């Protein structure tokens, strides 16, 4: 059953304004946290909530915060990842446009917890409306004395900068994002060192996704136990699921983690359009291996999806019906990755292009019997061998599509 936390104000008129946000008790949690909890307590609360990062990797948020070394003499930075660019994914944008203050309250609490005096919000450059709303919200919050320097009665102050991306998907990868904020080309950095130790401008840095941070006020308001109980044993709370593809009601749905994929498609998105059958579902955005129709009873949480060989990723569900060409779908996805590969590391730079070329050749009716295996082999040599996860993201779909729908990669006529 759908539960509205992050989306609770979305239907209200002027949901993006401070007035509406405050009517629902907005910023009360931040105020209370600042007055009554130590940063350490906030980190512990978030740890207990089992909140996992909503940006794709699902890393436990409280643990990430606890890695920040204290007293290094350097500033600590919080970077908000609002670069949402993965095909199929449109959840953070809704938060930014419909309820930016919820995000800002979460940013305030997170910054307090990790001891950040400055925060950057890295916004996808194409999100013009979202940018306007966020900047307005920041102005409103500062004017109301909720954010900014010299907050009344508080040892806490926070300056938040909005940094616009210039159109590269890779800048959503957290270390490329840091490079980009530093004014450099968005090339992911090699780890170690990890950003928690040496991040933005060489200082300890936490990077969190918009949805992750929008969850934080709810945890601090209602408690870790309550939040954690919403989800599964290891993944607490609700998740936003953008649903697209061949469904009757494409859109954004919020469900507890662990809700079966089928429920979200049928109950939330109104089932497959035109009474067609499902051929496959991409469960978590472009980089997640595709599931077959038989696999869609899987509970939508990090561990269950890993068990069936896929990922929760960003939670973006893309439904492919029986008429969809898997060859063309994969070609579409791989063109995206080839276009967005930063080009820094060899297997991803060369592999993504090679994959696209092979797929294009098959689509042009010039496929060869060994092509499916060639595709699998190229992908196998990218997976786990690239500098950043984009290489894996590009390899995953190839391996799942070609394995599960092999015949469509042999004869182009079958896949029209």
């Amino acid at each position, binding site marked *: 059953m759908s539960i509205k936390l992050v989306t609770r104000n979305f239907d209200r008129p002027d949901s993006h304004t401070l007035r509406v946000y405050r009517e629902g008790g907005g910023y009360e949690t931040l105020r209370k946290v600042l007055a009554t909890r130590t940063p350490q307590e906030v980190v512990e609360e978030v740890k207990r909530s089992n909140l996992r990062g909503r940006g794709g990797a699902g890393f436990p948020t409280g643990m990430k915060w606890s890695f920040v070394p204290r007293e290094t003499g350097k500033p600590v930075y919080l970077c908000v990842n609002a670069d949402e660019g993965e095909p199929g994914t449109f959840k953070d944008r809704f938060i930014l446009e419909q309820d930016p203050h919820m995000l800002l309250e979460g940013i305030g609490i997170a910054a307090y917890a990790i001891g950040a005096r400055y925060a950057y919000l890295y916004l996808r450059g194409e999100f013009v409306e979202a940018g306007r709303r966020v900047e307005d919200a920041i102005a409103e919050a500062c004017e109301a004395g909720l954010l900014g320097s010299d907050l009344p009665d508080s040892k806490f102050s926070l300056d938040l900068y909005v940094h616009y991306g210039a159109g*590269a998907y*890779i800048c959503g990868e957290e270390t490329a994002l840091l490079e980009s904020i530093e004014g450099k*080309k968005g090339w992911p950095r*090699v780890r*170690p060192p990890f950003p928690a130790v040496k991040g933005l401008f060489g200082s300890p840095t936490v990077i969190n996704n918009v949805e992750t941070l929008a969850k934080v006020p709810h945890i601090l308001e209602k408690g870790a136990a309550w939040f954690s109980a919403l989800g599964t044993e290891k993944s607490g709370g609700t998740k936003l699921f953008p649903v697209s593809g061949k469904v009757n009601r494409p859109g954004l749905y919020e469900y507890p983690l662990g809700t079966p994929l089928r429920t979200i498609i049928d109950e939330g998105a109104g089932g497959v359009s035109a009474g067609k059958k499902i051929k496959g579902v991409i469960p978590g955005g472009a980089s997640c291996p595709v599931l077959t129709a038989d696999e869609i009873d899987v509970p939508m949480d990090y561990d269950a999806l890993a068990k069936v060989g896929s990922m929760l990723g960003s939670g973006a569900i893309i439904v492919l019906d029986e008429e969809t060409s898997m060859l063309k779908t994969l070609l579409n996805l791989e063109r995206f990755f*080839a*276009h*967005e*590969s*930063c*080009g*820094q*590391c*060899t*297997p991803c*730079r*060369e*592999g*993504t*292009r*090679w994959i696209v*070329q*092979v797929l294009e*050749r098959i689509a042009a009716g010039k496929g060869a019997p060994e092509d499916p295996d*060639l595709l699998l082999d190229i992908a196998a*040599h990218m997976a*786990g*061998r*690239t*500098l950043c996860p984009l290489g894996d993201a590009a390899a995953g779909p190839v391996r799942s599509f070609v394995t599960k729908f092999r015949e469509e990669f042999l004869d182009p006529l079958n896949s029209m």
Partner: protein
Amino acid sequence: MPTLMIDDRKITVEPGTTVMQAADRLGIFIPRFCYHPGLSAVGSCRMCMVEVEKIPKLQTACTTPVVEGMVVHTYTEQVMDARRSVLEFLLINHPLDCPICDKAGECYLQDDYMEYARYTPRYKETRWKKRKVHILGPTIVMDEERCVLCSRCVRFLQEVTGKQRLGIFERGARSVLSTFPGQTLTDPYCGNIVDLCPVGALTDRTFRFQQRVWMLRRGESICPYCARGCNIAVDYNERSDVQINDRRVYRFRPRFNPKVNGHWICDRGRYAYRFIDDARRLREPMLREGKRLVPSGWERTLKRVARRIREVLDTFGPEGMGLILLPSVTIGTARRVRKLFVDDLGLTRIATGPSIDPEADEDSILLRRDRFPNRGGLVAAGFPDGDPGAVTEGVLRGWATGKIKLLYVIGDDLPRFFEETSSFSIPSAGGILILQRSMEGPEDDFARMLLPSAMTAETAGSFVNFEGEEQTFSAVLPPLEEALPDEEILGRLSLLLGLKGEEACRHENSVEEEQG
């Protein structure tokens, strides 16, 4: 200090060392493109992946710090598979240029393919087409198709020279290395990026299409063009015939020496290779006959020099002769000068050249304003420390006013320090100018005798650099035509001056003694 095992060999290293550095120390070679010990490690080419026990994925050796008890394998199935696949990926968009590529023979891609890959090509699609000739600067040209995008060149300029001149533009397989718009590579160290480039993407316009590298032999010498004394490799072709205008030396490259120059040299030193077989080299001893300098052979020329020296000393005493010894000579030469001219002949009017070239610049990288390589060596040989130029000017004044009847100058590049060549013009009272050096110069017009000396790469000896580091080198090449090492010239001269106690000259480059 963590101890780890690499291929069953144990090594203990400082914390913070990477697996690559530890393996290099053990002499276990892990192939690489982007890693270079003189630059930051970026882990991007993925060629150096190794297996580390207890870690499921392969790790890049160049960026993985060692940990106590780590067990690394560099030769497993999985590692070989990774190497093969990185090479396959790199080669799908690589042109088949080896037959016309200057890097062939010392190219990482070629070598690694032979060593680790040798697969049957599977790539049937269309190769990426990029620019074949992109002039990046006066000395460097880029072939975009050969570039493996390792970013070594970008990092070199950024990290070593502090200049952001190069960047990799675009994304994915469209990525291409270039200068930033409107910029050209004119930085005084940019020659290093040609050495650094693991493939034939960056080539040196002076070396382009000149030689196949396997025709070249490598000798080791010291750069004589400033007080740093960078360690260089001299790449030469033994079979070149200078008589038909072939050159012998085709390039200088840096030799790693952590105490002196690290991994690099400056372009001033690098491109000095061209002087070695330059048309302006002095090739044979000459004597003035009327208006012309006439080739006269060592025997005759040196006899004449000896006779003139004797005459001047007999008539005017040691005060009548001046000597300028530039710190471009070896310690051995300096000692011999001291023995011959100071101890035996008693000269007092001796100068060692000004230390500062007014036009020279100095930087915090390598280049020193003192453009001579062996000022410290002259001090070691007993010459006074430091010559602000006043002493040299004093000697020249003595010459101009006719007090000095015979001026003997050893070493190249003196006139550059003075405003006019006319400092050397013959004083009205007449006078004998003897120049012993390697290259022609405008002041040759005033010389009575020209004694061609060998250049540093043709000489064995040692220099003491500005930090007191003594560096010994041997001769890479025989001296050009009739030229001789300074030490040998002076040895012969002292015999002709009839001086006793002078050791017989036993220079390894000594050409056959002339008859008569």
